[in-house]
């Protein structure tokens, strides 16, 4: 991923693949490159079958402006090198996006159309995945700020900040004992809170307290009166911060119901699907499991026995895994030959997938045979039915 590979590494790979000493591979690459450079720089077209065509093209002279002086200049005509990859190479490189095809836009759609783009955007999750959380975060930020402000009055928010500052000044300025005492005083107030809410900042204070305990017990009484005001403030502050954090966490959990459900669902379904995966290697891209194999697994994994038996399928079960760059539409294209049929994959796996536009990486998907839904992959009416279904699903997701 985004690595830079140099000549020497290339030679290493070549030698390894061809099973020959490095010297020969290096010699070959060197000769090849000198030949290529000579040919190209002499202005000849060079065609390499597994790669593409290198061709010098003539660029006409054109008028330009010197950016520094503003003087008009003329760029003389010259040759430049163009490289056109071979068709097979183009297809191999574009493989992750192979399922997309050109779509005609309706006339009434806006130019910077969001609506028609949605279909593509949902599939384009390699980038989307990085973007989506960021935007969602922003969405959450706003409500959480306003909502946390409502339950906690602003007067309480202020002490929430102040005691911390006071505490810090106290820690720096007076003798150590004083500071320890204050921390100790704080301990009883902090303790119940920890038990109730398990709040991180409070825990940090709590861990320091036991160490202080023995040294400063007699002084506590003296400082107790002095710092009662502080204690009150600290108490309020701690309570306020705790409330704020709890509300924030609750909001976060509320706003990410999909993540929560998928996360909690994932292990159990992974468990049930594991039965299918067992006989073959897990890392396999597409795993075909014959009914015979599931029968073998039945005896091994008794827990999932009912699940496997529940769907007695004569046809072999095809399983695929969601990865980076592999989406439902990709799978549909790969297994059925058309991307519109992802709706059937979705329907088959609707118990695992909460949002078809954002299926977590690593989700194991069962690919149903199209005959199960009475669909013919080459029939245009069936494609239209699938597209209509997709539209309905998208609408339902929006609500």
């Amino acid at each position: 991923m985004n690595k830079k590979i140099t000549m020497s590494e290339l030679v290493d790979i070549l030698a390894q693949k061809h099973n020959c000493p490095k010297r020969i591979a290096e010699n070959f690459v060197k000769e090849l490159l000198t030949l290529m450079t000579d040919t190209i720089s002499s202005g000849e077209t060079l065609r390499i079958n597994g790669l593409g065509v290198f061709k010098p093209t003539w660029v006409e002279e054109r008028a330009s402006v010197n950016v520094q002086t503003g003087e008009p200049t003329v760029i003389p005509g010259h040759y430049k090198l163009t490289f056109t990859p071979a068709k097979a190479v183009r297809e191999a490189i574009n493989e992750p996006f192979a399922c997309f095809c050109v779509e005609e836009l309706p006339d009434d759609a806006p130019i910077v159309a969001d609506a028609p783009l949605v279909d593509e955007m949902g599939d384009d999750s390699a980038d989307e995945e990085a973007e989506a959380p960021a935007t969602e975060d922003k969405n959450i930020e706003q409500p959480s700020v306003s909502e946390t402000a409502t339950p906690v009055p602003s007067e309480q928010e202020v002490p929430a900040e102040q005691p911390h500052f006071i505490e810090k000044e106290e820690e720096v300025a007076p003798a150590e004992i004083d500071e320890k005492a204050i921390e100790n005083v704080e301990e009883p107030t902090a303790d119940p809170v920890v038990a109730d809410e398990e709040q991180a900042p409070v825990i940090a204070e709590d861990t320091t307290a036991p160490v202080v305990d023995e040294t400063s017990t007699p002084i506590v009484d003296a400082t107790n009166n002095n710092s009662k005001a502080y204690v009150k403030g600290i108490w309020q502050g701690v309570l306020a911060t705790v409330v704020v954090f709890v509300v924030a966490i609750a909001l976060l959990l509320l706003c990410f119901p999909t993540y929560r459900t998928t996360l909690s669902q994932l292990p159990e379904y992974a468990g049930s699907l594991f039965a299918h995966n067992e006989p073959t290697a897990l890392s396999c891209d597409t795993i075909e499991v014959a009914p015979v194999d599931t029968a073998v697994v039945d005896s091994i994994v008794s827990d999932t026995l009912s699940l496997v038996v529940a769907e007695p399928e004569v046809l072999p079960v095809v399983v695929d895994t969601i990865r980076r760059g592999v989406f439902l539409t990709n799978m549909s294209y790969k297994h059925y030959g058309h991307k519109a049929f992802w709706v059937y994959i979705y329907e088959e796996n609707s118990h695992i997938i909460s949002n078809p536009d954002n299926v977590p990486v690593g989700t194991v998907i069962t690919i149903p045979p199209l005959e199960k839904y009475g669909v013919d992959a080459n029939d245009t009416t069936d494609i239209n039915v699938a597209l209509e279904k997709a539209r309905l699903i998208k609408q339902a997701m929006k609500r």
Partner: protein
Amino acid sequence: MEHKDLVKKLQQRLDTTREEVESMLDLFCGTIVERCSQMDSIMIQGLGTFEARKKMERVSVNPATGKRMLIPPKIVLVFKPNSAIKNQLKARK
């Protein structure tokens, strides 16, 4: 220069069989394609850099019919010649 000529010349220079050269050349190209499809870039000294670039989707208009089309995103293999080759070509008239 066509592929055949390239292979022939290489064979003469390296003093090996044609099959040997062909298989090596295939592997060489295959490696470049394979690494580039993993979004790596390959720097070849004295020649240039091969890299895969992502192109965003875009709306284009068919000038003949006036229909607007959504061109899907794609990944393309790009070759950037190094400056020595560029200059040599530029100097040619």
